[in-house]
């Protein structure tokens, strides 16, 4: 049972289509950057954990082909897949593998190349006896849950649009982010095409090609390899029932995220998350979800999320900057998205976030979201 820290991260430039590389080469690009950031070589890596939504690219056992790109040759390689939470689940799995004492250094890499699949291919294989009878898609399903959230909490399209604007403005300072929209405004979000009421195009995440890698080291190695490692303080997973109709007002209650955060805060000793957490990288596939997650994460009381965004509390210069990277709203290679959350949170703690660094960030939160309501919560800190 060892303490574990992130000692390096690496990501590709996320974009609409990376025709210049295969999936394996894409993964190698992120891996190589993470190795350089950690100041180690692939020979120092003891084990590899991979994350990818294989049906988006129509692959079976993609680690067979792509594992080489993560330097997996004759190394222990394991692929973790839990839907949208795959990336954070892989980060939690890699953390457990490193903390077990079996491996000193563990590499986690997530990737997706949406450009190689037809639209919505991954959504084609839902439950054939139930979900596959209706064309709702991820956008439609979110819109349904948002109607409940809006009805109960009274958040406005303007408040949601502010989340979208914040994300894209932050992304403009992140060289790896997919959407770079410095000139975005609330008006432009609200004027963008309606996808499904009340979700406008610019309220929604893009589909990206990209990869992201995180390198963990165990307690005896981390301080020697990294001047300011990002120590894993808590890693909690909660899954929920399989059908959207099982979930009671999912965005309103979001019981998985609420409970995972409660347990993670307890482990770390956080009692006032808004005050104590310095920066958060949360998995928000749609603007409205970020507002719902504020409540579930205890950043504010129920019904106060709109005020949080109105008052700029979660802006870069606010009390708790949320998604300095631009978040999933700016970059979404699904299998990598959860890894990006952890990488970005670690970069903040390590002081390596460049132009989107939150000054003196010491305690960072990362979350994963997947399926209809699965959640992961990870907390990193300087000590």
């Amino acid at each position, binding site marked *: 049972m060892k303490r574990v820290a992130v000692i390096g991260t690496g990501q590709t430039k996320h974009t609409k289509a990376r025709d210049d*590389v295969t999936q394996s*080469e894409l993964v190698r690009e992120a891996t190589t950057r993470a190795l350089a950031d950690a100041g180690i070589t692939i020979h120092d890596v003891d084990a590899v954990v991979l994350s990818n939504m294989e049906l988006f690219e*129509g692959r079976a056992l993609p680690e067979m082909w792509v594992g080489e790109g993560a*330097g997996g040759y004759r190394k222990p390689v394991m692929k973790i897949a839990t839907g949208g939470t795959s990336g954070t689940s892989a980060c939690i799995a890699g953390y457990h593998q490193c903390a077990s004492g079996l491996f000193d250094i563990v590499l986690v890499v997530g990737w997706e190349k949406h450009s*190689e699949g*037809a639209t919505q291919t991954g959504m*084609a294989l839902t439950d*054939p006896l139930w979900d596959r009878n209706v064309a709702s898609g991820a956008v439609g399903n979110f819109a349904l849950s948002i109607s409940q959230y809006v009805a109960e909490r009274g958040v406005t399209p303007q408040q949601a649009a502010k989340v979208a604007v914040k994300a894209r403005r932050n992304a403009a300072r992140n060289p790896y982010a997919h959407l770079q929209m410095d000139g975005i405004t609330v008006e432009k979000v609200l004027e963008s095409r309606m996808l499904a009421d009340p979700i406008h195009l610019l309220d929604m995440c893009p589909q990206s090609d990209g990869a992201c890698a995180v390198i963990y080291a165990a307690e005896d190695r981390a301080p020697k390899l990294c001047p300011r490692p990002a120590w894993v303080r808590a890693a909690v997973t909660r899954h929920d029932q399989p059908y959207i109709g099982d979930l009671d007002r999912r965005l309103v209650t979001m019981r998985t995220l609420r409970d995972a955060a409660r347990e993670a805060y307890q482990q770390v000793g956080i009692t006032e998350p808004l005050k104590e957490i310095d920066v958060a990288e949360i998995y928000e596939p749609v603007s409205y979800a970020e507002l719902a997650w504020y409540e579930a994460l205890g950043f504010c009381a129920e019904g106060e999320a709109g005020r949080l965004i109105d008052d700029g509390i979660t802006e870069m210069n606010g009390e708790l900057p949320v998604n300095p990277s631009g978040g999933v709203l700016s970059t979404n290679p699904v299998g990598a998205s959860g890894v990006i959350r952890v990488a970005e949170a670690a970069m903040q703690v390590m002081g390596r976030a460049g132009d989107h660094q939150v000054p003196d960030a010491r305690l960072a939160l990362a979350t994963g979201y997947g399926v209809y309501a699965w959640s992961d919560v990870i907390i990193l800190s300087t000590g």
Partner: protein
Amino acid sequence: MNNNGFVTAGVNLSFNYAAGEAASRFLIALRDEKKIWGTRCPACQRVLVPARSFCPRCFVDTGEWVEVEPAGTVSAFAPLSPLLPGEGPGVRVGLALIHLDGADTALAHFIGEADAPQIGLRVVAVFAESRSGHILDIAYFKPTET
């Protein structure tokens, strides 16, 4: 829906995989020049065929591009049962791993125009008439004339 206790459902989906710079260059050479190229790993010195951008063993960028011979030796063979769609009978007879002369790895491909191929057989590439930048721009490998 039926009474057999199961429901049948399927997919018909298209995927378009990026070949990337290295594999594109390899496939373009097949298409435009009917030539087979490998890349040499600067660490282990092996010539990898088909050409790769990096050596999976050494995890370093490959450097030098090396043209290998279109002829080589069969190192594994399996007879084909269901032929590829559109394939005429009797042309492609099996799958093989072929060590091309000048390469340190083998290429997986078809064997054609052969009666009873065996490991050790010398073969040479037969290029397709119409080529599109695809691994099947080599139609198959056939036994060399002795």
